């Protein structure tokens, strides 16, 4: 009896959590008559890819297609990942492998910096972007997201670096390997999985971001996907099928990546913040 109640509660929770995602996908596959019917069907009766076709082949804005926005987003996210990964790897190695005077201060700074409300930085970063002449360019976003993703990336990566047995590097050093060689041949390959996990988080940060992308980029052909979707969504409130198809295409990569690394997220924010 108790077991039934528990399982029932579990099903309710699962329904509440997963339903919007299901509904997004289901709506994207329904023909318009089903979408705008006053009696919604739980499952698409006549599933169609028409909305996807419309999104992928049509122009959201004259001359600009969904693929262009997708590409803008991908350029920004991948550049952020590469820069952030490189800088974070260096810093994480310093923190996990060396003991130096300001090490603890540095770690505390990282912790505090992660808590800066990024929403409060829109105005000063807008000023900086204007001054640097980067307004209305994708690099303005890459720079911004680099700053946002770096503290957490270091925090996460230092655990991975610390987990590599130091003896391996010492053995290499005894065999006459230089520091650079040790780093490249021993440490880097062993930390690589951690670097991948960390990169996914930087990717998601950059991929999902809306406010800064909305503010720093003006030309429509340079919009990232979130901005394009807000625009597209705000413009035509009734094209729910296409909106849901676009949302699905935007969301799926994030969900796949996220599920790959979600374990680290919890340890990064809670346990990793405690020990690491």
């Amino acid at each position, binding site marked *: 009896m108790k*077991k039934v109640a528990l*399982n029932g*509660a579990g*099903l309710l*929770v*699962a*329904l*509440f*959590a*997963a339903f*919007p*995602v299901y*509904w*997004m996908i289901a709506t994207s596959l329904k023909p318009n008559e089903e979408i705008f019917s*006053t009696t*919604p069907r739980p499952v698409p009766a006549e599933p169609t890819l028409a909305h996807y076709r419309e999104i992928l082949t049509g122009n959201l804005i004259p001359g600009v297609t969904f693929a262009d926005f997708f590409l803008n987003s991908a350029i920004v996210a991948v550049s952020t990942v590469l820069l952030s990964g490189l*800088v*974070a790897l260096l*810093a994480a190695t*310093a*923190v*996990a492998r*060396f003991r130096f005077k300001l*090490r*603890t201060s540095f770690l505390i700074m990282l*912790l*505090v910096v992660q*808590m*800066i*409300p990024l*929403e*409060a*930085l*829109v*105005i000063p*970063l*807008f*000023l*900086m972007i*204007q*001054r640097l002449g980067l307004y209305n360019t994708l690099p303005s976003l890459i720079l*911004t997201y680099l700053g946002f993703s*770096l503290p957490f990336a270091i925090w996460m990566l230092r655990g991975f670096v610390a987990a590599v047995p*130091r003896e391996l590097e*010492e053995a290499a050093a005894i065999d006459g390997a230089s*520091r650079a060689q040790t780093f490249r041949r021993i440490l880097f390959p062993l930390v690589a999985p951690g670097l991948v996990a960390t990169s996914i988080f930087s990717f998601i940060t950059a991929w999902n971001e*809306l*406010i800064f992308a909305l503010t720093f980029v003006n030309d429509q052909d340079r919009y990232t996907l979130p901005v394009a*979707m807000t625009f597209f*969504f*705000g413009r035509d409130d009734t094209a729910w099928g296409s909106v849901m198809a676009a949302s699905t295409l935007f*969301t799926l990569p*994030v*969900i796949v990546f*996220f*599920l790959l690394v979600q374990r680290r997220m*919890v340890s990064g*924010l*809670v346990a990793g913040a405690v*020990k690491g």
Partner: protein
Amino acid sequence: MTTLTEDTGTAAARETPARRRPRVDRLPYLLLLPCLVVVGVLLLWPLGQVVAMSFYKLDSVRQLRGDREWPWVGLANYTQILADPFFRTVLRNTVLFAAANVALTMILGTLVGLLLNRLGRKMATFVASCVMLAWATPALTGTIVWKWIFDDTSGLVTWLFNKLPDGLSQALFGQSDWTGYGWFNSPLLFFAILTLVVVWHSFPFIAVSVLAGLKSVPSELHEAARVDGAGPWKVFWKITFPLLRPVFGILVVLSTIWDFKVFTQQFVLAGGTQDRPTFMLSIYSYAEAFSPPPKYGVGSAIAVILTLILLVVTGLYVRMVLRQEDE
């Protein structure tokens, strides 16, 4: 994993007595250099800059580009905001919203965490996977879907309310036809839906963290208490909660920080920055600065106020983390 102080390392221990004199190794500083530049230029400098900007009258982009003077106005932006009754509305919205969302997220997240711990293996995996979906969904698309669910003609909620027996619907709400009902028109209803969206996005993190905490607690304690006849309520408050107190502390602080600066969900749900009665601090700051006519100085002052509030919360968080690190 190492602790903050453990890193004396074997390398130092192996050094021969003749070389024990400490030598300054410059390598770690070199490795940190790029990171320090990034954090300094992209986070700390703007943080200082937003404070500086809040003391100027900045009304045009040309001032930002450096083509025009920046007139110093001292605390005028702050006195103007604090004297404005609208600011009090915004502050009240922000605080009440954050309080309600933190409370609801923590309660729902903890309950789901406890539930996941009690479910059988297969069921727990299934429920946890579904919960992960809510977590993984980007704030933007998650909010768009909820907006569709509350659509005033073909939305699921509108349909559900239309399905209610007319008499019941009349008695409860004074209307039976919900088609065309503006779910987002009254501020209270707007905040209720925004709360639903934000809690939906944020309870999974709490649930998974609580579950991770529960797994680290030996289950014998719970069983012993249950054998002694303690009910689930008592077991939670007498055993689970005290053991997981540090985890709960951090989760509350993190949730508070996140819920104080909700932006994307509100922006999408309200369809931009026009819905002033539902403003909270972060969107207020943004709207002052970027909706024409631009008021970058006033927007900065609001951002500083938001930052100061969060600074206090962050102070609590850092103290908590450091205290755990000592243990």
